């Protein structure tokens, strides 16, 4: 029976559906092949049950690794994401996470230190005022969610490549790993980390990044899907090991380039 979207005043139906999709219990999430009549047809046509159980999931994950490589190959380090005029900014900019807005982590500004580690020379943590003193740029770009919707926002911060330079990072390393206050984590490839629009973001719409958008900082990556843009970043590590990420570990494609 089709679920018809009911319009409830004051509730964003888009967010409701989205939450419903995300808050599926874990066992359901793992079963990619559940309740699909079309799969019955597939079995019927092929005469074999290729889509039952772990083997299908293994094959799909292997193809996803292949797709990581294909996307890395397609990624042009000099190609900029389209930018937009201020009039194109989506208002209000949607809040989106695997938790409710009032459950967003609260990171105290006072005493905050960004931990940095891995293949870098200067491992001294960074206080906020020192971060805010870095040279900053503003971008108005499109945030594309893995769910399909998109929104245009304005972010201000330091180029991640510039920050990595100041850390004395070995940019021959393969990955940059982000650790987030709420337990979220994310690993990105070095070419994307060095892309001119990849930004360690301190401001949204000219104001200090509010809690809901990722205080104290997020990593804005307009060449990747939204979930590859970690919020509430508290640690950055340069590494040769792909440490995965919150959604990637559950089956979402790792590279997720745009």
């Amino acid at each position: 029976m089709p679920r018809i979207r009911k319009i409830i005043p004051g509730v964003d139906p888009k967010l409701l559906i989205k939450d419903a999709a995300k808050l599926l219990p874990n066992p359901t999430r793992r079963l990619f092949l559940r309740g699909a009549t079309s799969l019955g047809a597939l079995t019927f046509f092929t005469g074999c049950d290729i889509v039952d159980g772990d083997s299908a999931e293994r094959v799909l994950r292997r193809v996803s690794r292949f797709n990581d490589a294909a996307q890395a190959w397609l990624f042009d380090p000099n190609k900029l994401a389209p930018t937009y005029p201020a009039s194109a900014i989506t208002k209000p900019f949607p809040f989106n996470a695997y938790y409710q807005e009032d459950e967003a982590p609260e990171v105290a500004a006072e005493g905050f230190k960004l931990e940095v580690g891995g293949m870098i020379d200067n491992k001294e943590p960074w206080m906020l005022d020192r971060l805010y003193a870095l040279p900053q740029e503003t971008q108005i770009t499109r945030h594309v969610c893995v769910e399909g919707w998109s929104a245009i926002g304005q972010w201000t911060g330091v180029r991640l490549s510039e920050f990595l330079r100041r850390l004395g990072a070995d940019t021959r390393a393969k990955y940059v790993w982000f650790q987030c206050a709420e337990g979220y984590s994310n690993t990105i490839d070095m070419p994307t980390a060095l892309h001119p629009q990849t930004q360690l973001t301190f401001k949204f719409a000219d104001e200090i990044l509010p809690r809901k958008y990722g205080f104290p900082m997020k990593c804005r990556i307009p060449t990747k899907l939204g979930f590859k843009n970690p919020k509430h970043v508290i640690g950055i590590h340069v590494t040769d090991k792909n440490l995965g990420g919150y959604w990637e570990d559950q089956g979402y494609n790792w590279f997720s380039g745009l």
Partner: protein
Amino acid sequence: MTTATAENSQTPPVAQAVIHPLWVRITHWINVLAMIVMIGSGWEIYNASPLFAFVFPKSITLGGWLAGALLWHFAAMWVLAINGIVYVVLGLVTGRFRRMLFPIRPREVVATVRDALTFRLSHADLSVYNAVQRLLYLGVILAGIVIVLSGLAIWKPVQMQELTALFGGYDAARYVHFFAMATIVGFLVIHILLAVLVPKSLRAIVTGR
């Protein structure tokens, strides 16, 4: 082998006429599988952020949840694309498209529709498509090209931003992708219905004759 040759020369040419050569049959059935996966997983992906005030019932979607559907979609896309390229290239190179799909004359389309509605449509020779078949097959090939291009525009709105712009931007490309799907599903309903009504057409796409 000599016997076979002798037999062949004695059989009237009409009886041995192949309606669908092997490459058409192979690409057709690979396409069936790829499309079932693409459409089923595409509906699940649509449900994560619906464009309209409806979602597809879970029982007819594929993937279980968004991540699963995306895995299926981006795996089957390779099968769909490679198979589609082989089909289109062979269709052009062998002259099958030109021979089978053209010309399409509006007057013949009207006449065919009239014959169909009055149950006078001939199915005697399956190797010649009537005007409506030509129109529908050409239309679904074009819809296939549009769905692949709009899909690329959604998947890579930065790396392929020129293509995305051609569709009117990221959000517009999602609608194009949806309507191309709706067009193809609409075609499939007619296609399958007619194949069932004229069973020997089903035999032709399996055995070739």
